[in-house]
């Protein structure tokens, strides 16, 4: 049996036991006191806390600061993750936005095709573009309307916005449209608002140059260019594009038809302009009824 040094002295053992018992009784007494007269003991508790806890407030601060740092870090992580998710969603939304814009443009073009106000004498046939010419030097397209639909050589073709080309070659069921950009295309035009006339000479580019303008100073970039109807080549008044000046100082026409998206073409019927042959009754001097009858008799001979 090990010699227990704590109890080696005869006095300390029983004294310690007595002390323990007294302490236990004291604590139980405190509990009973609390049970009986709770508010007083609670006040005592609050007084103790009041004395003890504020002494430690200098130590609370760094620990709570650290804990707040950790919580902030977690919330930053959450925000970062949310940010990444939102970016991904935004990318998806962007692609949807592009699709919507394209659809909107196509819609506008098709609506234009319905709304363009042309000369009511100019009826049209709508055709679908089948193929293009397949060569980088020949700018032409094939459309699916031909002789059986009444297409004649030389008629103008436009999309909903502006002039595209000219019928040059008609088959039974299809016909070829020579585009304005082709090197063999020559279109007489009027430049508004100055009213100058000119000639669009195609040169295999999307902005063909305009030649034979009488007074270049009256023409400014941005002016509208429309067909003039000279020489019965095209019907008058069809929009072609806007004037632009290239880096070399040459005047070109920025075509308003959408050459990259040629799907539906409108072929304008043009049966030729009326020719005025008589000078008109206003110009001749007034003739008396007798001389009129004599004139008629003379013309009848």
């Amino acid at each position: 049996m090990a010699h227990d040094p704590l109890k080696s002295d005869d006095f300390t053992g029983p004294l310690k036991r007595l002390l323990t018992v007294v302490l236990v009784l004291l604590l139980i007494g405190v509990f009973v006191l609390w049970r009986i007269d709770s508010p007083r003991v609670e006040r005592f508790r609050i007084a103790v806390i009041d004395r003890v806890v504020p002494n430690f407030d200098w130590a609370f601060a760094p620990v709570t600061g650290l804990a707040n740092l950790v919580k902030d870090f977690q919330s930053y992580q959450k925000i970062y993750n949310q940010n990444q998710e939102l970016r991904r969603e935004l990318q998806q939304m962007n692609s949807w936005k592009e699709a919507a814009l394209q659809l909107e443009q196509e819609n506008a073009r098709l609506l234009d095709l319905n709304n363009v106000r042309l000369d009511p004498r100019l009826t049209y046939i709508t055709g679908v573009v089948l193929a293009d010419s397949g060569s980088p030097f020949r700018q032409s397209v094939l459309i699916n309307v031909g002789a059986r639909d009444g297409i004649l050589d030389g008629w103008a073709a436009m999309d909903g916005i502006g002039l595209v080309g000219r019928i040059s070659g008609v088959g039974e069921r299809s016909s070829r449209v020579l585009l304005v950009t082709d090197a063999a295309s020559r279109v007489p035009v009027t430049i508004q608002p100055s009213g100058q006339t000119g000639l669009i000479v195609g040169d295999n580019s999307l902005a063909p140059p305009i030649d034979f303008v009488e007074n270049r100073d009256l023409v400014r970039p941005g002016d509208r260019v429309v067909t003039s109807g000279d020489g019965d080549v095209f019907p008058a008044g069809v929009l072609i594009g806007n004037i632009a000046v290239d880096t070399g100082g040459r005047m070109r026409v920025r075509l308003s038809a959408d050459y990259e998206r040629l799907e539906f073409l409108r072929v304008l019927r043009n049966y030729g302009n009326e020719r005025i042959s008589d000078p008109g009754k206003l110009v001749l001097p007034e003739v008396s009824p007798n001389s009129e009858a004599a004139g008629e008799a003379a013309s009848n001979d």
Partner: protein
Amino acid sequence: MRSAFALLCAGVMFLHLLPLETRPGYFPAPDIILSLAFCWALRRPEFVPAFLVALIMLLADLLLSRPPGLFAAIALIAVEMLKSRASRLRDMPFSVEWFTASVAIVGVILGHRIVLLVFFVEAFALKTTLVQILLTILCYPVVIGFSWLFFGLKKPTLGEVNALGQRL
């Protein structure tokens, strides 16, 4: 070393008081002060005098909003019983010591609950109390390790003498 014990308990109470988690419903904290007292009592009984234990337990009661005095009294009785068995348990393997401490923890916390029931005092839900018992038992070895690491608290080896020359 007694002051070390007091400071350690003060540190634990300080941690309890920190406003880190104000939402309810999380795991109840294990009763570290209780397991500290038991661990020190089983290793160096002279470092946990009755008076100090009573004072610290009473302070813990007051600070942690328990009915003051009851838990302290029961814990004091338990500590005294463990102190008297310390010399016998010194040579036993660790599991026996852990088992003894667990029995003491269960006894203290359940006894506390029962007395509160008898006196018609509201207490925590039974599930919380049981979880607390379990967590306290589980953290007992952690407390031992901590005390050994930072305070050098070991069981007295054969032939060791204390400062007054008495054999431990």
